[in-house]
């Protein structure tokens, strides 16, 4: 076990865990931030997507010891009150079915729009291809990203 100082959603926190513990489980089991989901544990489904200094990463394979001073943002911290343009677009398009993958989808989309405010459909597909949706809401996700992008 070892102590790690982390910045999560703008808040400084300290956890005492095994250095190999993936950030996913630090968030879920130690910080009670459960919006970030476990889906595969091998970075192949995207349900666990968070931002590390604004870049989308899969937290299920990210050891807590490798985070250092980089800022972690989770779905709970994407906006203070659920008003991020993507969250609003998701509601307008009524995207979710089961909903389990959607936090990861939104985090991947948010990182995309942060670096590319007007992505083409091909760029959306490329950025989002690591995020599985078993319910098949891909068309609505694409539409919601376009809506959010169009608003700038």
């Amino acid at each position, binding site marked *: 076990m070892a102590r790690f100082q982390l910045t999560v959603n703008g808040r400084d926190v300290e956890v005492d865990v095994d250095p190999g513990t993936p950030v996913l489980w630090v968030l*879920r089991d130690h910080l009670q931030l459960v*919006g970030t989901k476990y889906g595969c544990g091998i970075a192949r489904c995207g349900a666990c997507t968070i931002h590390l200094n604004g870049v989308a990463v899969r937290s299920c394979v990210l050891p807590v010891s490798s985070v250092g001073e980089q800022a972690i943002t*989770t779905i709970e911290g994407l906006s203070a009150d659920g008003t991020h343009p993507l*969250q609003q677009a998701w*509601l307008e398009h009524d995207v*979710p079915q089961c909903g389990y993958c*959607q936090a990861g989808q939104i985090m991947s989309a948010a990182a995309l729009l942060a670096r590319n405010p007007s992505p083409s459909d091909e760029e959306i597909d490329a950025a989002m291809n690591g995020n599985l949706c*078993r319910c098949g809401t891909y068309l609505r996700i694409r539409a919601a990203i376009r809506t959010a992008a169009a608003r700038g």
Partner: protein
Amino acid sequence: MATVKTTLNRRSFLKASALAGGGLMLGFNWLAGCQTDPTPAPLTLPEDWFEINAFVKIGDNGVVTIMSPNPEFGQNVKTSMPMIVAEELDVDWQRVIVEQAPFNPAIYTRQFTGGSQGIRQGWTGLRMAGAAARHMLRQAAARAWQVPLEEVTTHAGVLHHAASGRSAGYGEMASAAATMPVPEEVELKDVADFTIIGTSRKNVEARKIVTGQPLYAMDQYREGMLVAMVVHPGRFGMRLKSVDDTAARAMPGIRDVFPIQTFADGYERNYFDTNTFPELVAIVGDTTWQVMNARKALRIEWEPIEDTEIRVAGFGGTQTVRIPAGLESTPDHAARMAEQAARPGRVVRRDGNPEAAFRRAARVIERTYTAPFLAHNCMEPINCIAHVTADRAELAGPIQAPEFIERTLAARLGLPPERIDIQMTRMGGGFGRRAYGHYLVEAALISQRMNAPVKLIYTREDDMTFGVYRPAYHATYRAALDEAGRLIAFHVKAGGIPESPLHANRFPAGAVDHYLAEEWALDSNITIGAFRAPRSNFIGGVEQAFLDEVAEAAGKDPIAFRLELLERARTRPVGERNDYDPVRFAGVLERVRDASGWGTDDPPGVHRGVAAYFCHNSYAAHVLDLVIEDGTPVITRVCSAIDCGIVVNPDAATNMVEGAVVDGIGNALYGAMTFTDGLPDHRNFDTYRMIRHAEAPKAIDVHFVESDVAPTGLGEPPFPPVFAALANALYRATGTRLYEQPFAPHLEAFVQQTTG
């Protein structure tokens, strides 16, 4: 208005006095309704709530809480079921809060999500619940105003008496209404008067989903909760022999390791008690990561199972199921199915004289289709929270069929059902998998042993390799055409491991004079379960691919060919057990033909396939358009026509159809679980290929046939025909018919062939 006798029993209408203040109700109004503002102001909660019946609570300020009875796994019943209550209650949807009802089938009757039956079977009861509450509000107003009941009308949560000009909000009358007698008859609205049903309302939990709030069992925690995992044999056909837990126990955070047995000896299983791995090794610790690591240090020995027979109480009485010993492999399965298919099957239906008709046919077409096992792969892996004490069991988990597993829990734990509380959490997908609630029993046994609350978590690998798969299937079709290209005889022989996919009374039964349907099944120790549109998900797709080929052989347009057959089934049906309505079946074909511009407005350079199917009481047809780019099918558009009667929530229903189309394309192209000596060849999403963003259709247009017929299912019916619409379009693109699912490996071969 229709007058309907209330059949809800007395307990459905327990008239409680005010609940203990509004503080119990933590709901916010996330019901955005039709408004475009995604962030409506939260509702002001009432001081007091009055329970009018088990489905409806009304606050003193007119805010209404409606209970949604069925478990939610993404089909959006948590919005659409309360919409039905709200319609008859006649309230402003903006002032409705939705809550998940507790599991209590004595009050809420059928709390089972599956078989596309939620809305269909809930329809009348939900309407009556709303109508009965409205009636009691009107009674309260009539008494307060001293006017005849018939003169009290309602509009959007307000009671009116036109003659005296009086009016009152539901909140003002709620207290009195809760003391009114339950009506023995209620009036239901005419379909034409609906103001909520048939209008699109947003998912009531969407805001919680997009902000990451804890909705799933996986997200829940309990004070003092431990984390548990279970280890099952790596191979089907094996069972637990011994476990050496010395190393695992020494690892940080590990509390205990022990075997568990899901069923007591001699227990007669019910239909949803899957036989998958009833003996497991449980490992319990403080955190998920600690348990995940420590389980790798377990040294477990497995041994082969013997041939066994188990007794299962099914829907058709108790059956004996044989479980053979041995380590099974996919190539052996293929060989066994081919061998069995060459033998006579069990005749399920026979019309006319098919043998004679085939002998005199001008042309006979025979084709064989196969499909592999499929894993459900719900995004939320199997999990469950359990807290079992000496005299109670509390469970919270993703469960489609709580009623069945409650019986299993009661038998296993030795507790009466009333001491077992099952909370139905929002499910991260279901698709049939969560009808099999073995994991509730596993979690309960672990909690009982640990004397602590426990969260059982399956890893993705545990989830994917645990069985309860869609069966592997095989079907051989024969069609006889006469000189004029008319279909004179039809023969299907279908089977699978370990169940047949046949629906003998489906189209084209009833449309052909000479018809023969046979089936067979082979035993296996690989376990199966319901998977979105069970059996239909194979037989519907291959039948519609076969008919496409028969239409081509007959020199007919595939839609016109089907419509001719349906016209025959309508005017001169063969046999009496045909399970479809040929008029509604033809209706979706005509609708998809017109909406897609089939034959009149075909997009240039695009290859089109059509298919239609009836299952789970509803009708679905698709026209799928694709082009091949760099050897990969790019699906440019899917046009869907659906007849599921009244559509309660059109945009949500559209979402469901879109999902079924994507799911169908994904499983048809990529879906496969294969085995080598009992070992599942795929354990995670690195090799089990699922459809992804870039492979989804570019557009899906969904059209619902306008209808005032009571609603039927939608989760399953659009799924089976997707397989055929895709297969038929791929044929037009490549010139090659594909008979073996999944299709993608064959397309790669086609690309190499044509470009090499």
